[in-house]
């Protein structure tokens, strides 16, 4: 059975790296602050909603950009949603790409938009993998009888 303290150290190191590398920002910490005994799965719930929502948005974006005549207002509206939800959970790198993406929408720059779509998809997949790893680590700690360290 893995030592709890080892797992906890792993958790702290991993979380710290996510913040240092800009995958997550302070907003994620805000989410964690909202989790309590009355709602012990809050962070996982919100992040799962984000995953579902993001995948829909990515599909919608791909479809919108494949149209013969691209409706940039529609594309922008999807990116605006994506920017909002990623910002609300602290997925900083995704939000940053969305900012550039919106600029290209304004310019009606198809190439720019297509590039941003690839980029935002890439950043989304990265942060999704990171968060899934983080949640797995949490589960392991709890299963080993430990408590999840609070990150300040």
């Amino acid at each position: 059975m893995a030592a709890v303290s080892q797992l906890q150290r792993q958790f702290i190191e991993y979380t710290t790296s996510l913040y240092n590398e800009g995958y997550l920002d302070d907003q994620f910490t805000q989410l964690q602050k909202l989790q309590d005994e009355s709602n012990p799965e809050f962070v996982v719930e919100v992040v799962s909603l984000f995953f579902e929502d993001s995948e829909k948005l990515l599909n919608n974006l791909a479809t919108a950009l494949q149209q013969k005549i691209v409706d940039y207002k529609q594309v922008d509206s999807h990116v605006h949603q994506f920017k909002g939800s990623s910002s609300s959970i602290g997925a900083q790198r995704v939000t940053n790409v969305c900012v550039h993406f919106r600029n290209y929408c304004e310019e009606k720059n198809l190439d720019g938009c297509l590039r941003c779509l690839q980029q935002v998809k890439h950043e989304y997949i990265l942060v999704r993998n990171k968060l899934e790893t983080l949640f797995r680590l949490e589960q392991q700690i709890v299963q080993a009888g430990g408590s999840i360290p609070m990150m300040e």
Partner: protein
Amino acid sequence: MSIEYHEEDVPHVLAVDDNLIDRKLVEKLLKTSSCRVTTAENGLRALEYLGLKENQQQNHFNGKGTKVNMIITDYCMPGMTGYELLQKIKESSVLKDVPVVIMSSENIPNRINECLEKGAERFMLKPLKLSDVLKLRHQLIKCSTL
């Protein structure tokens, strides 16, 4: 820590946002700040809940007999913006004194001024933090019984 509240003591907030994640977040922020929360996904639903939709009978119990102590709404929503919702609320004799807070992810001075001039109590930038909502709850919500 759990506190027993009587119905009249707990402020009731209507939160309006078209983004599912933001709706869940604002609901949790408000609940953590000891508020009862009803959410609506757009302006029209909000108006329906408040009993302000056209053809609805206006009464003192805004729709379902539950008093609303504050309305917090996103600015950018499809169909009806938060500003338009604010307007409708301020035009209502029954609801004009209910504090309305507008949230937005965009820091646009014209937009902020426009909302404040229309009577919004406050304009808050998203993403909201727990400390912001706690402050809001203490400063704004007066629980008055009819």
